[in-house]
């Protein structure tokens, strides 16, 4: 019995420690990204641009390809039900709305968590193990400013861009199904999508994508900083950064979807 209580207690404590660690890191990052530059403390624009290429530009092919396929699958699955009602016309609406509101941001976040979140954890973890982070601190260079803020800004800017791209690719995926199976013309499909979409669908998706991006950055960097003990520690941190950021992305997704639903 006491064993069970101790188990629950220990896990609750480590959960709170994790949560407060994440909070602390995101507060520090927000300070160094948005407050410090206006106090003349500088910002590493060069590394931020470099990170934008890594997390954004280089992810373009994989994000658009996956979103294209998801859009296509969505059209298949939607048509399977809608055909029964003779409502195949609404496949375009289904794909358009679900891509922009939900799947565009979510698919992008999951791909980026696997691609960049893990890379952040591995990079910072390796630097921690090889004392590079200590070396920065000893020089009086703030590790959050030098290592986290460029990634944070890159994600802040690139996640909405990638999400828009994913939205578009998903709609094209749906359209490719529409062309061959529903015998629609491309312009008919696009018109049907346009009729169904409102600006709010796209903007709520983009708001979500920003939240997801910041979550992935914070979790990845936090796990990297928390690495202890060599290569094995780096491996563990990389794995748990992906698992944890996907989990938190989905939690945030639930919260924001509910929020948009009730305020919509």
């Amino acid at each position, binding site marked *: 019995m006491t064993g069970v209580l101790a188990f629950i207690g220990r896990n609750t404590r480590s959960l709170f420690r994790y949560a407060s660690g994440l909070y602390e890191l995101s507060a520090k990052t927000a300070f160094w990204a948005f407050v410090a530059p206006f106090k003349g403390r500088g910002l590493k624009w060069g590394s931020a641009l470099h990170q934008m290429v890594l997390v954004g530009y280089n992810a373009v092919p994989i994000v658009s390809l996956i979103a294209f396929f998801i859009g296509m699958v969505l059209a298949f699955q939607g048509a399977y039900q809608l055909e029964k009602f003779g409502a195949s016309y609404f496949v375009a609406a289904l794909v358009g709305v679900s891509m922009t509101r939900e799947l565009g941001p979510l698919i992008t976040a999951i791909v980026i968590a696997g691609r960049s979140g893990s890379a952040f954890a591995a990079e910072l973890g*390796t*630097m921690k193990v*090889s*004392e*590079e982070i*200590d*070396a920065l*601190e*000893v*020089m*009086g*260079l703030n590790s959050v400013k030098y290592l986290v803020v460029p990634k944070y800004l890159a994600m802040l800017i690139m996640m909405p861009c990638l999400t828009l791209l994913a939205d578009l690719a998903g709609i094209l995926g749906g359209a490719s199904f529409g062309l061959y199976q529903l015998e629609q013309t491309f312009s008919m499909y696009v018109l049907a999508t346009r009729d169904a979409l409102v600006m709010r669908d796209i903007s709520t998706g983009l708001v979500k994508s920003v939240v997801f991006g910041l979550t992935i950055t914070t979790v990845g960097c936090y796990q990297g900083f928390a690495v202890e003990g060599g290569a094995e520690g780096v491996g563990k941190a990389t794995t748990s950064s992906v698992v944890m950021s996907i989990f938190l992305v989905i939690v945030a997704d639930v919260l924001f979807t509910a929020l948009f639903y009730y305020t919509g």
Partner: protein
Amino acid sequence: MANDAAEPMIRVADLVTHYDERRILNHVSLEIMPGETMVILGGSGTGKSTLLRHMTRLEIPTSGHVYIKGQDVCHMPEEQFNQIRRKIGMLFQSAALFNSMTVQENVALPLRELTQLEEPTIRIMTRIKLDLVGLSGVERFMPAQLSGGMKKRAGLARALAMDPEILLFDEPSAGLDPITAAGIDSLILKLKMAFRMTIVVVTHELASAFVIADRITVMHEGEIIVVGTPEEVRNSRHPRVQQFLNRVPEGNERDVKAYLRSLTESGF
């Protein structure tokens, strides 16, 4: 102490540190004078590296203080300590070069980030520092292309970039062959002669300790057991010091019966 009138460069007062529940340092007090080379000697896990890390606030103590030039660095704001930090250079055990930058960029980093110097000046200063440690012509190399000894030298050049008054070395000869290690030792001696820096070296290499030290501190299980000149340490009657100097392995005098009992009585 050699000179009671002078203020110590580094004063560690009654320092206690824990990692989780394990006590690493147990009421450690130590004074290091300006211009002195202090070697902290001890086996693995005796807390000597932790003590060194406290001197540049990489660790926060459970209790106690570290004073640098009379200022308590454990409890001052980050901003204020950054000013003091500029006067401290540190060479890490693994050299800790930034792997994504060339050697030149590594050495130039503190100058670029912390000073207003022009790029040509920085380039010249970088070259001077690299010459000083005997590393000319590798500016464009990446750290991964350097040998262990060259990495240490490059790390030292970076530590020297801001012309520090205090230089900290964490295991400078760890992982190096004896000849390269001797090269690092003579480099430390050269810096000591040329710049009168205050140098603190953590090591377990006896030979190197007796070559470079003005004074030696011997640590065991988180406590300082002897502080003195190399001669005083060599003549110390303390059993742990003698054990360390004569390289006697731990646990030779283990009671055989107690050992057998501990094997059979473990809870299986």
